[in-house]
């Protein structure tokens, strides 16, 4: 049916227009040899011979600095690993904070749920930048938190919180928490309460019910929330620049610097392409191996 094909076609068209096409442009630039030119959009084909010339050095230089450098001992590899590590920490923190919250939300009376959900979304109504700046005000040496601690006599002098790992992780988990809560909520609200009662009936304590029934059955929500937090966090630029320390160079910042300070677009795009590969390849493997499990009904009603 043409109508049906059209309906399915629309999202594909969108994906191609807004995802695949920009990615192909990135991929193209990442192989360009810019030379001393200021303009990155150069042909990949030699003007005289018509030969395809790809500058692989844009990639290889990410892993080895200079001719004699040790493999993988570059600031880029370091920034990648650091980004993945902080994204992982953020996702774990969001899961630890978000799961009880989503569980509480899903178990609350249906009449109060819209109001509670609204409160999850409410921060989105104010500027993201303002909210991150607000954390600066809270975490600064003369900020609300330190003032409070000193007033209570819990510390004699201000504790350095801002521009550390702590402030960066606080900021990132704060901003990304709703992306964990919402998919978890959507999953937990569908959880059949009778399954929990059946487990109780068979002698499981409330805690055992949670670990043996609730958590395994919300696996899809946990994975979705984890991905939604982890993936954007890897490339996060604004929060680390505003709240993180100077030594916490993350890959988003490196891409920015290559693009706008070094004006080395091919290297910046190569970094970006690699980042996508780092995220997409494990994801693709995951989906390939767990497709059978994912196709199973999570909740039978």
């Amino acid at each position, binding site marked *: 049916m043409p109508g049906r094909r059209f309906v399915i076609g629309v999202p594909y068209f969108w994906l191609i227009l807004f995802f695949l096409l920009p990615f192909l442009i990135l991929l193209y630039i990442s192989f360009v040899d810019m030379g001393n030119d200021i303009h990155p959009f150069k042909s990949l084909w030699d003007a005289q011979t018509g030969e395809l010339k790809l500058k692989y050095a844009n990639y290889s230089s990410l892993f080895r600095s200079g001719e004699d450098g040790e493999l993988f001992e570059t600031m880029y590899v370091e920034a990648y690993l650091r980004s993945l590590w902080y994204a992982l920490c953020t996702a774990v923190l969001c899961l630890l904070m978000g799961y009880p919250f989503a569980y509480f939300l899903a178990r609350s009376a249906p009449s109060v749920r819209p109001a509670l959900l609204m409160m999850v979304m409410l921060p989105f109504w104010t500027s993201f930048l303002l909210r991150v700046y607000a954390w600066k005000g809270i975490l600064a040496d003369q900020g609300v938190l330190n003032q409070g601690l000193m007033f209570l006599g819990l510390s004699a002098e201000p504790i350095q919180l801002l521009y550390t790992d702590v402030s960066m992780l606080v900021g990132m988990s704060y901003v990304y928490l709703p992306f964990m809560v919402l998919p978890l909520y959507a999953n937990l609200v569908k959880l*059949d309460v*009778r*399954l929990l*009662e*059946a*487990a*109780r*009936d*068979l*002698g*499981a*304590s409330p805690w*055992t019910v949670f670990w*043996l*029934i609730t958590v*395994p*059955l919300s696996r899809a929500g946990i994975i979705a929330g984890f991905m939604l937090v982890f993936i954007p966090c890897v490339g996060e630029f604004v929060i680390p620049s505003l709240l993180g320390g100077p030594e916490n160079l993350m890959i988003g910042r490196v891409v920015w610097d290559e693009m706008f300070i070094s004006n080395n677009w091919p290297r910046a795009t190569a970094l970006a392409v690699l980042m996508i590969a780092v995220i997409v390849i494990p994801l693709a493997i995951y989906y390939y191996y767990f497709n059978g499990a994912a196709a*199973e*009904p*999570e*909740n*039978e009603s």
Partner: protein
Amino acid sequence: MADKDATAGYLVTEKLIKNFDGALAVDEVSLSVGQGEIFALLGSSGCGKSTLLRMLAGFDVPSAGQILLGGQDMVRIPPHQRPINMMFQSYALFPHLDIWENIAFGLKREGLPKAEIQQRVGEMLDLVQLNDYAKRKPHQLSGGQQQRVALARSLAKRPKLLLLDEPLGALDKKLREQTQFELVNIIKQVGVTCVVVTHDQEEAMNMASRIAVMNRGRVLQVGTPEVLYEHPASRFVADFIGSVTLFEGWLSVDERDSCAAMTGIGEIKVGYGVSGGMLSMPVAIAVRPEKIGISKTRPAVSKNVFFGKVQEISYFGAYNSYIVTASDGSQVKITEANASRQDLGGFKREDRVFFWWDDHAGVVLRD
């Protein structure tokens, strides 16, 4: 009454009340179930039968009253510590665990040694004949098989009391009859005391030795299927169990071994006395459709012969069903067994017919 016999009293509820925000879901229910008995709670949805069951399981806390099982008070014991297991409506099998794990779930919580769990799950799989399916997931099984897994899971811990919540509700009609017998056989084989909740009177009558009919949180009558059908205590029970025609009227004759009521179609004679009856008190005479005869010619009986007009005829294969409009306009349900292969008993719509019944067929109802 049957509920005062010698075996009764294993499961006892005393004036059990459940109050949901001012609405009485269960209203002073006192029941007594004997050890090894299959007892049914029958009623339409919202009658409180499910709330009663949930209180027995421990998921709802009674507002007042007592639950005693083998003399032990259950009210304060949380559900996971009660020696009671439930087979849930549409089974509530754990979708992420295979059949073996589903059945072993309760045994593992008891902390039994591995070998014993292995052995008892094996026994349960034998009992419900699902040995070949141990490694399947619930959604890979048919509805009937899932039902047997649910039964095995609820029996695995050898509960003192088994609760069945609409055990056959999720099955289609054909499968239901066959499954019913299997279910009863297995329960009797195990010998566990059992309370079944159902809205299906046939299911209750087939499975249970006694039935409590519930309406609006109250138990209206407890009795064997025969007692409920032949001697209903109230209009509600007479109407709820099986099909019936109620003739409303007042008591016109009240003697020791017979009575009569004056109704819209005339005086109806009943072959037994009403204890504590008073002349001219309002009563209803209930008559089951299969106990009423129908013919075009006047029958050779003298009592309870009335006249009417055939309004509806339905052919059900095993029997024919008629609705006859009586002289006062009331509609009388009559069924006639289809003993010989005949065409609808030779009746047509609008035929003028006689209908009659024996004076022992009618039941006098006061409530």
